[in-house]
């Protein structure tokens, strides 16, 4: 049963969902080359702040792989928008039919949406929740175990790819995705599960004799043509510990799918109070004691959350598939036509009840009493987004897909009181081999 749901071992990799057309086999080794492009066009109708309608080459990849025996190597690179970007680069070893080890640079496992190739995605953009709250690619090692009813993928990662932080040494990440598959048939699959991630954040910038960390959490409004992240944007200073807890489900049969994911993010904070307190001494306006400085500069954990539900219905074409190796929904195949819908909610607001917000200076006063020198606010107003998408996707064949999405986004952020409603009409042409 399992074997039926799992395609040839290393043939598919993250970010690509099609078997490479070009391959060379010699001495038990197989070398493949492939490529992919995505061209998007988008029209934005905004209430106040304009977005830049237009067209963009949002993805241009070259991929290669080498498979020999139990070893598999994969690399792909993006050069869209005229800039080279490192994408996946990993080595994988198969312990047996159920177990693999992977090392290199690739997606942290703790998110269904971010592990699904954009080439296989049934929407032009991943949901804002995944783009903001879920992790992306990291440098690390994972161990994966799968059987007919269990999927368990977990690993450890470094804080950044090139150890090029301004100050401090790198932290680490532990992440995993654990699923139970009560139904795992060729024509029907149901999986439910959880994900979790812990990140220790150590690196940042030098600040008054300490390392000041900052967790930047942003997302565009479910589009790639105008990639601005000014609307949904939370900067969390002194972040030290990041915990993601998630839950997900996926059901698919041959003609429909429905899947969803919820992510709760807790960001603990830490800083060297004593050093910072000493650094501010020596002026008329200095805090006179460590306790008073701490009272004036409180540090509170920040919490965000979000979730989405996606559904699709196949009008005609090749049935929906399930990639059991990755526990992900497959992309469109052959000549197919589908309609899809999504609702996403993302909350990057963590504002103290009763806080007074002063838009002119983008400042919260947590006790709600207007004053000249309030204590530092613990409120974070990164924005909240409700986004509803309807889409129609047509697949000409395994290589060429056309996607059209309309998205209505209802946005709420104190900093942008006039920007409430966004309408986005997008189209995408995908070609991959």
């Amino acid at each position, binding site marked *: 049963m399992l074997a039926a749901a799992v395609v040839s071992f290393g043939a598919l990799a993250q970010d690509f969902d099609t078997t490479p057309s070009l391959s060379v086999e010699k001495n038990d080794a197989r070398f493949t080359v492939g490529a992919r492009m995505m061209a998007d*066009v*988008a*029209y*934005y*109708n905004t209430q*106040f*702040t*304009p977005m*830049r*309608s*237009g*067209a963009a080459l949002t993805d241009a990849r070259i991929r290669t792989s080498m498979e020999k025996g139990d070893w598999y190597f994969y690399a792909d690179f993006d050069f869209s928008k005229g800039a080279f970007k490192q994408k996946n680069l990993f080595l994988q070893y198969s312990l047996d039919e159920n177990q693999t080890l992977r090392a290199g640079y690739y997606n942290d496992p703790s998110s269904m949406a971010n592990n699904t190739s954009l080439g296989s995605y049934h929407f032009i953009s991943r949901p804002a929740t995944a783009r903001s709250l879920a992790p992306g690619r990291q440098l690390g090692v994972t161990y994966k175990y799968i059987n007919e009813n269990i999927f368990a993928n977990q690993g450890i990662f470094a804080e950044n790819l090139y150890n090029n932080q301004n100050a401090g040494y790198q932290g680490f990440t532990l992440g995993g995705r654990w699923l139970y598959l009560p139904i795992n048939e060729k024509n029907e699959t149901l999986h439910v599960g959880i994900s979790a991630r812990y990140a220790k954040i150590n690196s940042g910038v030098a600040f008054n004799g300490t390392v000041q960390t900052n967790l930047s959490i942003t997302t565009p409004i479910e589009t790639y043509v105008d990639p601005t992240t000014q609307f949904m944007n939370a900067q969390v200073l002194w972040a030290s510990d990041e915990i993601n807890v998630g839950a997900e489900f996926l059901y698919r049969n041959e003609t429909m799918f429905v899947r969803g994911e919820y992510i709760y993010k807790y960001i603990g904070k830490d800083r060297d109070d004593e050093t910072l307190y000493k650094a501010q001494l020596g002026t*008329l306006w200095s805090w006179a004691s460590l306790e008073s400085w701490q009272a004036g500069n409180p540090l509170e954990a920040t919490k965000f959350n979000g979730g989405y539900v996606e559904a699709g219905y196949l009008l005609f074409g090749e049935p929906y598939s399930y990639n059991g190796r990755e526990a992900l929904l497959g992309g469109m195949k052959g*000549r197919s*036509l589908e309609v899809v819908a999504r609702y996403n909610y993302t909350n990057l607001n963590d504002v103290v009840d009763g806080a007074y917000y*002063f*838009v*002119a*200076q983008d400042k919260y006063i947590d006790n709600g*009493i*207007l*004053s*000249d*020198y309030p204590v530092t606010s613990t409120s974070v107003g990164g924005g909240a987004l409700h986004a509803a998408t309807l889409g129609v996707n*047509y697949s*000409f064949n395994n290589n060429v897909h*056309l996607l*059209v999405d309309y998205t209505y986004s209802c946005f709420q952020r104190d900093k*942008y*009181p*006039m920007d409430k409603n966004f309408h986005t*009409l997008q*189209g995408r*042409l995908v070609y991959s081999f």
Partner: protein
Amino acid sequence: MKTTKMTNLIKTAAVSLVVCTALTSCESQDVTNIDRDAARIELGFISEDMAKVRDYVPDMAVIAHRGSVYWVPEETEAAWRWAREMGADYLEADLQCSKDGVILANHDDNLRRTTNIENVFGETVPESRLEFYMSEVGGGMSLEAAQEQMKKDRASFNPYYTNQYFYHELAQLDAGTWFNEESMPEQARENFSRIQQYVSPLEDLIMYAEGKKLARVPLTNDRIYTIEGKWDPANPHTSLKYNFAYVDDEQDTGHRPGIYLEFKESWLNPSNFEEMVYDELDRLGWNIITEPEPETAPFWKDGKVNVGNTNGKVILQTFSFESLRRTAEKYKGQIPMCFLLWHDNITPTQYAGYINMGLEFKAHIIGPSIAGAPNNYFEMNSPWMHGMIRRAGMLNHPYSFDTLEQMNVYFGAYHYGDSDFEAPYMDGAFTNRTEITLQYFIDNGVRDKNAAQTVPNPVEVLERLGY
């Protein structure tokens, strides 16, 4: 055959959609347009009750900024007598507080620039204070108690801040000579030194507005005052009472301007400072909440300023958020209030934030900074900004005019009539050059016909006043 047709149809539809979307997006290409944003951004609107108080303020008021920083040593007897005699509608002042609760005027957060405090007291607690503490008004302390109090004073002493000194100590300072030393030679006048200019209590300002001047000791020219009470460190701001003496100003020509009082940064003053000012206005008969003027009183009468006899006689102002809130709590919007702005590169959304905050905390007037030499402040009074203030039903009192060029700019001389917002971009002006502003208003037909239609020569006024 059927399949082929379907495929072609879908292909055609797809290509058409992409092309149409691209064309539509090109046609509707949009960028941020500040004028358009300013015109459509959501703003509050002044309430009916607040509008009634707003209308206490005369249109196109000429506000003598600190009296003047150009002609005279600012915020002194010379400055405000000059401004009154020039025909300014308001005498403007920055309020702070002495250690013993005298409300006084000083612009900077300390007294170094505008007095000789560094020479008189240095960075230490005035030594004469020990003797004061042992005197009857100083508390009648024993030597030991006085020394203990001095020790406490030294422990918390921040030199040069007004709230660190008793007023009788501040009265020893010369607030006039620095002007002669710092300003251009044309503005320097020997009598700014010879006739001692004092750090001015609020009471002085009010008396100048009423046509009086300081009573001085003949020959020495020292001001005359007495102190009553017994200073109590537990009750430092109300245990002493100063009785300042004034005389009718023989040079008074009958102008009765109002006063425009700024609450300075909240940390410079006691937390009940707005209440202290309320009580002081009350004591001096200038609190229109408790002692309103006739509603029919004109702002100008027979060519003389009469604002000081109307309900617009006092306007309050502040940059301070805390003071804005406390003023709203104490005065409840019943005295005209100006919210002063200071912000670089502001957007319409941010500007609306200030206006809405002003409305929320019962301000009737917005006071934006203006650009241009010599101060080169942030531009907070562009046409669109003025348009937003007007759309909220508030008045616009920009600060501070120093040149004819600035008058031209904010009267729209360089917008060639193309601006979306109607000039002039003000409803009054803080000015260091009362003579320029008055003449400009007269020449452009915005000065009330009941006001004087000629402007005195500023130098002749100074000479007439004895400087």
